[in-house]
């Protein structure tokens, strides 16, 4: 978030929060919304565009599929086990390996995607956070330059914030 100060508004009601988000957007403020759970209304009003995590999943899957088949094929050619007249590279049998590796690498890549896009781990730095946001309160933290905190606090209060706090530094 931009600015030297953070103004945190704590809300009990989601409709108030949504009003505050819309107002902050309209004013062109730099904000961050906190909620105890995911909710489609918050999502629509904050980040309606699709998440790029899917690219991690896709590339992980492609890599896993190629890797799984390559492993099975290369190992079979490197140490050929000749049984009757069966093919050394037995694709139907290797489908299982390719399939499992696709899922394995894709899932691990998705996990990396979560870490990357959610900016995790970030244990110490919780700008604008309040422990009540994992309980029953919603929050919005707005970054502001010196002198603008009063106007922003007023906007949040007007939208129905239970309390508004101005914090130093980002």
């Amino acid at each position: 978030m931009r600015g030297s100060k953070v103004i945190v508004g704590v809300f009990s009601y989601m409709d108030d929060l949504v009003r505050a988000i819309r107002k902050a957007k309209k004013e062109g403020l730099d904000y961050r919304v906190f909620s105890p759970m995911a909710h489609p209304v918050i999502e629509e009003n904050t980040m309606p565009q699709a998440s790029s995590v899917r690219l991690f999943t896709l590339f992980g899957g492609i890599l896993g599929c190629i890797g799984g088949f390559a492993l099975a094929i290369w190992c079979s050619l490197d140490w050929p086990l000749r049984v009757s007249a069966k093919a050394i590279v037995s694709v139907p049998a290797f489908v299982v390996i390719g399939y499992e590796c696709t899922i394995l690498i894709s899932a691990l890549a998705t996990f990396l995607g979560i870490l990357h896009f959610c900016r995790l781990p970030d244990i110490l730095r919780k700008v604008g956070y309040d422990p009540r946001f994992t309980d029953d309160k919603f929050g919005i933290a707005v970054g502001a330059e010196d002198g603008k905190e009063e106007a922003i606090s007023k906007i949040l209060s007007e939208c129905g914030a239970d309390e508004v706090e101005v914090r130093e530094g980002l």
Partner: protein
Amino acid sequence: MSETHGDIGLKEGVTYSRVNDLVLNMLKPPTFGWYCLFFLAISAVCWGAASFTRQVLDGMQRAGINQPIAWGVYITNFVFWVGIAHSGTLISAILFLFRAKFRMPIYRLAEAMTVFAVLTAGLFPLIHVGRPWFAYWLLPYPNERALWPNFRSPLLWDVFAVSTYLTVSATFFYVGLIPDIAAARDKAKTFFRKLLYSITSLGWTGNHSQWKHYMSAYLFFAGLATPLVVSVHSVVSWDFAMGNVPGWHATIFPPYFVAGAIFSGVAMVLTLIIPLRKVFGLEELITPFHFEGMVKLILLTSGIVTYSYITEFYIAWFSNNPFERYQFWFRPFGDFKLAFWGMVFCNCVAPLTLWIKKLRRNIGYLFAISLVINVGMWLERFNIIFTSLSREFVPAAWGNYNFSWVETGITVGAFGWFSMFMLLFIKFFPAVAISEIKEIMPPPVREEGALEAH
């Protein structure tokens, strides 16, 4: 179901805050009862470890397996525990994709059960091979002789399938836990707990960007875990079906095994969740609505399993193959007939009583039935493995089998091992999903209908 909250099955009056209190209350210091159970679990683990040590010192003759029954209780236990592991991913992933609301309060425990059951299942092939210190031979690792494993063997497929399943289900489980560990972190009182939850929640704050990417990723995880869960037990079934053994060599095995796995897994979820609900007072979160959902799954999968049993007999008769025909005569009337009829009673007959509303609404009865199904599913694996191996093609090579005390000890130890992890889990991490229950609850609003306008 008038006492519940709309169509989501929670009791009336439950709020976000109440969900936090109820779930995080489970993390309070353990009671005397918990210590007693933990002591029992650890004792069972010690018995299993002692038995395993005896087997390692003396060799495989300590186990009852022999020629022709080279796969015995260890493989039965392996298939049993992999089966138990399945419903966790079914409840968490497949029901997530179907948006089944009854999954919310039960899926975390089901996922924990999955991870710990796979950890238990994974022990058995290692115990069974006799020299577990060479278990790494199963993996394609570079070695001096450039010797690689046989990728055409179903046993190697199993190595890949089960290890993938363990990794993916553990990751999925952990990802689901992150927001709830953050909730536990924010309420933690002691330094140790605060530190533990701060590290394991990775600093989660629940901001809109995190939720957006998280939910998107969660959907992909569910999408990946769904084909995985179907593939893993199919691969386990191919351990048998790829072998030319009467009673094993059947194309029906994959769906039959997957249905059986879900059947036993849901029963195990009931076995775990019913006492937990009582002890921790979770009646407001886990209501008859959720039990109804699980009972429907049990009835469906019990029907599939019963149909598969009948099909096996029909195909044996229809094939006109004398070895198949004899095998399916031997199962109900041969040396292991008690196991067969026990299986039929536990898996086909007893679950039918759940069609009666009064019985399926009786929590005590459900608990009893869940135990009966667990026994039945163990017997099913026993039937498949033992009877087929004891009566293969050449009568001169027929044989029988008796448990040894080492196998009994290791089997009991596995239950202790699984229980030990479950007991530790419910005391250290939220065993019921906090944020996902809140997702299905109507959010608090100042003006009714205000959110619809958005």
